[in-house]
């Protein structure tokens, strides 16, 4: 069954790559490994999974009537606006955030480390017009807790990725994170999704 896409930002017309295709499993493994690295604070290892021209965005979402769309600001061409929100990153700024996470001796907020758990699922893979690049959409559920907080905060989002096959393997070239909440329970700052 091929799902008709109604989610914003997805290019219609790309060929579905089904879960019987070995590339589907390869991409699922890539996303699983990525989540593993982030849950273990291995930010610089995670940076090796992204391309130097990475565009990493997580726009803000608003609660709007159905006729006004899905709640993300869009351009006139119905592309989702980036540049505000929670993240609007390139490689350099992701690298700096990685340093903020683990490198400064006085990162009081980051030590003790919060405990995070990322669950990645609901993968849909499509080819793209660019040779060697795939469109991968997945769901993420991340729990985060600190101190003796008995109930973790959580966040859910849909990620729309472009994954590129390079000579060193698969790499994340673009990520647009479409969050479900319009008001997050906590900042989830510096915790990449």
């Amino acid at each position, binding site marked *: 069954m091929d799902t008709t896409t109604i989610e914003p930002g997805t290019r219609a017309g790309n060929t579905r790559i089904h879960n019987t295709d070995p590339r589907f499993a390869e991409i699922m493994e890539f996303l699983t490994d990525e989540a593993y690295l982030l849950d273990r604070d291995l930010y610089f290892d995670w940076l090796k999974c992204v391309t130097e021209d990475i565009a990493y965005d997580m726009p803000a979402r608003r609660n709007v009537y159905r006729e006004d769309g899905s709640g993300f600001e869009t351009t006139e061409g119905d592309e989702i606006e980036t*540049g505000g929100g929670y993240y609007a990153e390139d490689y350099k700024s992701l690298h700096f955030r990685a340093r903020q996470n683990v490198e400064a001796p006085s990162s009081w907020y980051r030590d003790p480390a919060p405990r995070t758990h990322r669950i990645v699922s609901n993968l849909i893979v499509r080819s793209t017009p660019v040779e060697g690049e795939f469109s991968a959409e997945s769901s993420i559920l991340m729990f985060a807790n600190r101190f003796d907080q008995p109930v973790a905060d959580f966040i859910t989002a849909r990620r729309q990725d472009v994954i590129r096959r390079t000579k060193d393997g698969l790499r994340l070239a673009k990520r647009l994170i479409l969050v479900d909440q319009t008001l997050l329970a906590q900042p989830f700052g510096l915790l990449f999704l």
Partner: protein
Amino acid sequence: MLLKHDFDHAKLMRRDGPTLADGTSFRELFDFEKREVSLRVMYDPEIHQLELDRVFGRAWIVLGHESEIPNPGDFEMRRLDEDPVIMTRAADGSINLLANICPHRGAEVCAADHGNTTRFTCPYHAWVFDNSGKLVGVPFERQMYPPNWDKSDYGLPRIACTVRHGVIFGNLSDKPMSLEDYLGDMLWYFDALYGGREWTAIPNRAGRYLVNANWKTTADQNQGDFLHVVGAHRSSYELGMFGAEGGGEEMGQYAMKISLPPSGHMLSLFEPNAKPNSLQTQEMLKARMSLPLDQRGWVVTIYPTSGCSAGMRPLPDGTMLMTRMLQSIIPYGVEHFDFSGQGVMLVPADTPRELMASLRRSPRGGGTGVSGIAMEDNNVWRSITTTARTPYAKKATLKYPAVGGPNKPEGWQGPGVIYDGFSHDDSQWHGWMHHYDVMTAG
């Protein structure tokens, strides 16, 4: 410790203010001699209720900018402290603030954060209101109500609204003082920063999130706490964000802070790379006095929770673009607030269209969103609110012992008590004195 030329403490010290359920008077929460405030104010549901009336019930609070609702029918849901307010433009072009409470049986008439509509229809009994709050239609009017039933008695509650230089202020009071009176000496600076040109909002809203802390933790810091940079943001020095990597601890403590008693507002200009008493600082001072006031980066705090900051952003061609940031911290109860929720960034309305189309709240990689710096602050505010909740909090105090005294640069023409130089605790104590003033006023 009582510095007469800074503030008129004597008048305030004569007031006891309200008495809390355990018999403590508000007066007992403050030590004017030592400049201390009881930690319990940072988490006391009873004090919070008093604040909702005495502080938020009378304050002019920034809700947004007229360029966010340019067309008739445009609406944005905003919060005036804890009260949801519909900010909307009526058919006649006027900007109206309406409480989101149907006058019939109390349901919410607006369910979305923004949009465009000329009619707000209540989902309960289908009463219909226009963008000025006027009740324009009810089902079965003839069958239900007497012939002389007057619809004008049943409009959506209107909230006092004043727009100045495009900035929209709201006030919950039935008889608010004028915005000019409320701004007091801040008016001089506000007009200098916002008057004289038209501004327009650029897209890309900030992401909203709750900080698990009392609103006063951030409001206190916004009254000129520069010292916290060496503590909470020490990692930023270590990572080279301010000055040279591993730079001296004096960096970032040099500021011009302007308190504006009795208004409770203040503004500050800080020089992250300035070392006190250095040649570099002398040059910065000279530059500051020679540049127009609106071409520097000011952090503007309007009591209790509004910000109207001014900045400059470098453009690709090397020129600088003026920016203005409007923001109101929104309390969600005694131990949460939304830090960025009502933030909007403005640029001059005559910015060339091609440039405008490319402007983002933050260029890619420009450090938008929930930065490490925000996290460091949030963590501390959460921490204070946590300790304030304990029984011991009644014995602990917030302390402001660093006295610098006013220091006005020669030739400075603006009003206010000016603290120029190495930052001390004086401006924050002004903030607390104003809070005391408001909480104990009749």
